[in-house]
């Protein structure tokens, strides 16, 4: 019995050590990134390399604004992912409501259309989309970036499940009072959506803020680049600016990291719902 106890605690110890290594491996690159962004260039490339800066400096954060149109990229990213997120919440709530609550002809066909489009990755049709935007004259504009993303089939699917779960009695009283569909949707349903908006909105925001291939293909001037695409092209250049790149990377991560610290529950909620329902 004693032996078994020992064996048990030994394996527990091993598991604990293993998880500690995993946590260290996950955390270290972030610690390194943030600390290194406060180093002088010579400190970053010195041998042997270290983690802690010999002297702290804001130099890289000052320099990066001259090396990169960082403010422009930041504003572009906010405009692009912000408007996509807002549009997604409202349009997907509207569509989800129609699928969940109203009976109309062609509903099944349309819903299958939504499910099918959920399964098609953007990379498959990126070239025809590029040509289409070129012909429409919206390539390299905010319209070209935002319009294809104003709706998200996956979010429609989630909003539909959300509205299905709301008891019908809520709207029936309003319907008896003579309220139309729009009144019911605007006055009763939308206020109920707040938590759903938060988790779906966060998913949309994270996906679009971080997206690389999509803005890379649909923009072609420095003025229109998002943080992700601009940074990717910056590191592809011949001359490598280690410090400036790290400062820019830190700035690009900061908003989502702060949001994650504040709204952690909602970051996870949407993902979990998608996994358990899908």
């Amino acid at each position, binding site marked *: 019995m004693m032996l078994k106890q020992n064996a048990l605690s030994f394996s527990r110890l091993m598991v604990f050590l293993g*998880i500690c290594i*995993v946590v260290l*491996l*996950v*955390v270290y*690159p972030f610690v390194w*990134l943030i600390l290194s962004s406060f180093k002088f260039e010579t400190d970053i*490339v010195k041998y*042997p*390399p270290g983690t802690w800066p010999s002297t702290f400096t804001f130099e890289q954060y000052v320099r990066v604004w001259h090396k990169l149109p960082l403010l422009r990229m930041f504003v572009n990213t906010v405009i692009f992912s912000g408007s996509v997120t807002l549009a997604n919440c409202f*349009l997907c709530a*509207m*569509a989800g409501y129609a*699928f969940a609550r109203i009976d*109309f002809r062609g*509903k099944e066909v*349309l819903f299958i*259309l*939504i499910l099918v*489009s959920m399964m*098609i990755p953007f*990379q*498959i*049709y990126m*070239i*025809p*989309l*590029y*040509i*289409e935007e070129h012909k429409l004259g919206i390539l390299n504009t905010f319209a070209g970036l935002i*319009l*294809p993303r*104003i*709706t998200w089939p996956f979010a429609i699917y989630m909003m539909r499940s959300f509205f299905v779960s709301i008891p019908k009695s809520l709207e029936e009283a309003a319907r008896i009072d003579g309220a139309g*569909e*729009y009144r019911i*949707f605007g006055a009763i349903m939308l206020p109920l959506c707040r938590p759903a908006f938060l988790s779906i909105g966060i998913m949309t925001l*994270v996906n679009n803020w971080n997206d*690389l*291939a999509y803005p890379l*293909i649909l923009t072609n001037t420095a003025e229109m680049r998002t*943080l992700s695409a601009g940074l*990717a092209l910056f*590191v592809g250049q011949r001359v490598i600016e280690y410090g400036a*790149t*790290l400062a820019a*990377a*830190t700035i*690009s991560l900061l908003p*989502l*990291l702060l949001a*994650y610290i504040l709204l*952690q529950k909602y*970051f*996870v909620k949407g*993902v*979990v719902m998608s*996994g*358990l329902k*899908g």
Partner: protein
Amino acid sequence: MENLLARANTYLNKPKVAAWVFLSPSILCLLLFVFVPLFVAFGMGFFDITIFFKNIRFVGVANYRELLHDQRFWNALKNTAYFTACVVPGGTAFSLSVALYVQKNTGFRRFIRSLLYVPVVCSMTAMGIVWAMLMDPTIGIFAYWSDILGMRNFMFLKDPNWAMPLIMLMTVWKTFGLSMIIFVAALQSIPEYYYEAARIDGAGALTQFIHVTLPQIVPVLGFCIVTSTIQSFMLFDQTYIMTRGGPLFRTESMVQYIYSRAFSLSPFRLGYATAIAEVLFVIIAVVSLLMYRFFVKKEAGGMQ
């Protein structure tokens, strides 16, 4: 006039009409920006189109025939398959094992859970930059450590044989938190008395896992495997940031090759690149359909 407005109002308030009003923005957007390009793609593979849209020619199946002899295409297909075959099972197994540990709701484990999710929130671009610098053979700290540990002159991403495995590791690092969090939710929803019953029957930890845990999480497992398979076939961001497909094309993925053919290799052949995208589409359609049927069967089998 007022009469007309009132009639318009009653018309618009008919449930059927309202449904179309609610749906039309989304449906229009999907038709215009997903289905139109998708159908155009099926035709485009039969044309010779460059990015300047001049001298567009119908070439029949020439693009597809050329594909058969295009070594870079086969290489990209091989790389992508290699990546998927390792990352999907490896990543899923890793997420599930971590999830088994962090599923309990103690304060410490909750904290670890939220730490491990952080890479998922961050962009592949920024994380790729960080990992590429950490593994840089001259300035990277990982290279320095591997030197100390006796792996002299290990070139990391510049080593043709190791570049892809390292990209895989980085991908698992960046993405495992996502399926981990889904697995945690699934594991927590298994009623405790299932385990109690198994324990009374004398089942050990492993038997409990195989006969109680696994059958309960089959649907979630299927979801995670199918989505991560599709994502793995779309491999692009990591290789674009960290290796640009090199060294010796050993990390060039299908999407990377499509991108290069269309937008960065002169002559910018959009028709040919689309033909490659079509092949990729057929592959993921077949693979995800097979997987879907497999998991639906498993699920049905589990219920009997």
